[in-house]
């Protein structure tokens, strides 16, 4: 066991996966000797050498396109896109190629590849170092989307993603990279994809969230428990695609009141999909309209980012609204 931050857990997960399987390799901008702009790949170049961990030209479609080629030819590349905001030049390679390769070749060619990318606000990064684009990718058949919210999950989910036979977009909440430490087992372990985690037990209301919103929702749930004497369940979805829909429907049936929290803009966000699934499958269990707490439908602001990102007060208000309905 070691006390690690989330970014250290990512680093440890990469190291363990690279030791375990020599076909695993890491590529991206500045991931080599520098160890990545967030130090997620720190020390890997020195430990595994240039062939296993290397810097690339400044070309996102190249990083992903080359990664796809490597994956089709026996390697397990872990591509880093330095900020999720810079992933869009690679959108074609991700959406048209990686996600569709198994399908369009009748299973003859597959892309066991992970694309790691830090996402979300909270570092005063403005429009282009802050976005939460999970909905673009969760909408794409053939692509898995995984978002950890703590060091233990970050390592276990990352190793599971690397072992997975299909392409996985692994979005890391950069606001949580160094926010807290947690005991993380040494060596190999996995957290299975497509499983949710109940991070706070409760039965009067359930909050669905992921990534950087998980600690915000925990705080909000605790505040409402204290102020109202109600127990609020918090569920970390962890894998957005393929989602464990049954777990979400079941918890809704048990709690009856639902809040969905995301940092991303509201319209057509992932919270909307959760709301729709529940409207179709659990409306008979709902005792109040579902509330979404989200970012706004604007580009991501810089100076005033704290008013954009949902905070515990906004989540508390939403919980109270569904409790009081």
């Amino acid at each position, binding site marked *: 066991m070691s006390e690690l931050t989330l970014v250290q857990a990512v680093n440890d997960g990469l190291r363990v996966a690279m030791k375990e399987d020599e076909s695993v*390799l890491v590529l991206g901008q500045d991931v080599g000797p520098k160890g990545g702009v967030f130090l997620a790949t720190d020390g890997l170049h020195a430990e595994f050498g240039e*062939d296993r961990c290397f810097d*690339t*030209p400044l*070309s996102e*479609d*190249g990083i*992903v*396109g*080359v*990664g*796809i*080629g*490597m*994956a*089709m*030819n*026996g*390697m397990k*590349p872990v591509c880093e896109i330095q900020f999720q905001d810079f992933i869009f*030049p690679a959108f*074609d*390679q991700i959406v*048209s*190629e990686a996600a569709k*390769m*198994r*399908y*369009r*070749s*009748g*299973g*003859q*060619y*597959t892309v066991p590849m992970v694309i790691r990318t830090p996402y979300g606000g909270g570092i005063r990064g403005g429009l282009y170092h802050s976005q939460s684009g999970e909905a673009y990718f969760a909408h794409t*058949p*053939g692509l*898995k989307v995984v978002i950890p919210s703590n060091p233990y999950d970050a390592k276990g989910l990352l190793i599971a993603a690397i072992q997975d*036979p*299909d392409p996985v977009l692994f979005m890391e909440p950069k606001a949580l990279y160094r926010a807290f430490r947690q005991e993380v087992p040494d060596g190999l372990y996995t957290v299975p994809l*497509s499983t949710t985690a109940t991070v706070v037990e409760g039965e009067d209301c359930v909050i669905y969230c992921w990534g950087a919103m998980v600690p915000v929702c925990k705080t909000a749930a605790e505040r409402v428990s204290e102020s109202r004497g109600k127990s609020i369940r918090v569920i970390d979805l962890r894998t957005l695609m*393929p*989602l*464990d*829909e*049954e777990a979400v429907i079941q918890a809704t049936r048990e709690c009856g009141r639902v809040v969905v929290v995301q940092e991303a803009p509201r319209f057509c966000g992932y919270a909307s999909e959760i709301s729709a699934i529940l409207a179709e499958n659990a409306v008979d269990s709902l005792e109040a309209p579902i509330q979404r707490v989200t970012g706004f439908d604007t580009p991501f602001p810089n100076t005033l980012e704290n008013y954009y990102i949902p905070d515990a007060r906004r989540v508390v208000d939403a919980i109270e609204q569904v409790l009081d309905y």
Partner: protein
Amino acid sequence: MSDLLQIIDREGNKVGTVPRVKKEVFLDMYRAMVRTRAFDDRCMKLQRTGKVGFSVPNRGIEAVSVGAAAALDISKDWVAPHYRDFGIMLYHGVSPERMMDTMFGNEADSAVGRQMPVHFSFRKPLNFLSISSPLGTQVPQAVGIAMAMKTRGEDGAVLTTFGDGSTSASGFHSGMNWAGVFNSPTVFLCQNNQWAISCPSEQQTKSSSYAIKGEAYGVPGVRVDGNDVLAMYRAVSQAVKRARAGDGPTLIEAVTFRMGGHSTSDDPTKYVDPELVTYWEQRDPIVRFSAFLHAEGILNEAADATLREEAKDEMLAAARAAEAKPVPVLTSVFEDVFEETPAHLKKQSAFCVDHYSSRGEGVNEKGEFPL
């Protein structure tokens, strides 16, 4: 860059050093070119008679595909193709019936009827990557395949093919740039057929050639007469040899002409000067190679005629066989999205089958269920 590698001129006369290969290889190349044209002709007829929805004319570019194919060792080399390369598959023994299965999108189609016609994908007898419709995306992928070979110390090479239009797409740039930086064993083959649908080369680039673009990436560029199959064979052989020796990538520009439309949905008479077509008809790659083989005494009139007839018959038989096969089962729509089908797709699959079977659809004439 004005130099054009040529070994036989348009009358079939030797103007360069003929590659020293067994005469069977010449015959294999010739047969593949004739079969490529026959396959193309059959596909055009199938489309014009409404039997398949779409095809991509290959007329005029046969020497590019076949000359390049002949330079590969498919026990270790891969191909990351674009969609106008029937000859690579036919040269290397993909059966026309399997190709027709993709044209018809039937249950035997290697892509299970999921792709449009012409978007072939084969793992055997050669690694012929699944063809994409977005342009140039295969180029960086080819570099990745090659880098994986290099990492493992293998001496394979990857041939990636694309048209002149694709040199304007980002994949060409990123792939070439990476190949230069990483010295990857990749052969970039630009089939300069002079058209990107209706847009001629002048609208694609101000460069004096496509081959010259390699220079900016530190990748040697070669211009080849793309209607001269022996020149193509020579250029690609040399590029593959360089790749195997660890000397890195090569860009080859094959200068040819697309004698048909972009696709069966296109009417090239609206934008192609008929005089240009006449000019290129006189440079037909099959006529030229045939004249060479006759002059060399490798092929005679009778054998040539037989070979052409056999090719036509072969393609007709392949089309008939593919046409007779049923469409894929309905549940195949939901397979191969992921290795393991997740719950939401199982649910959607069950819904789809129920919905259509209750209306008597999705059930084939043998009463098997579900179609």
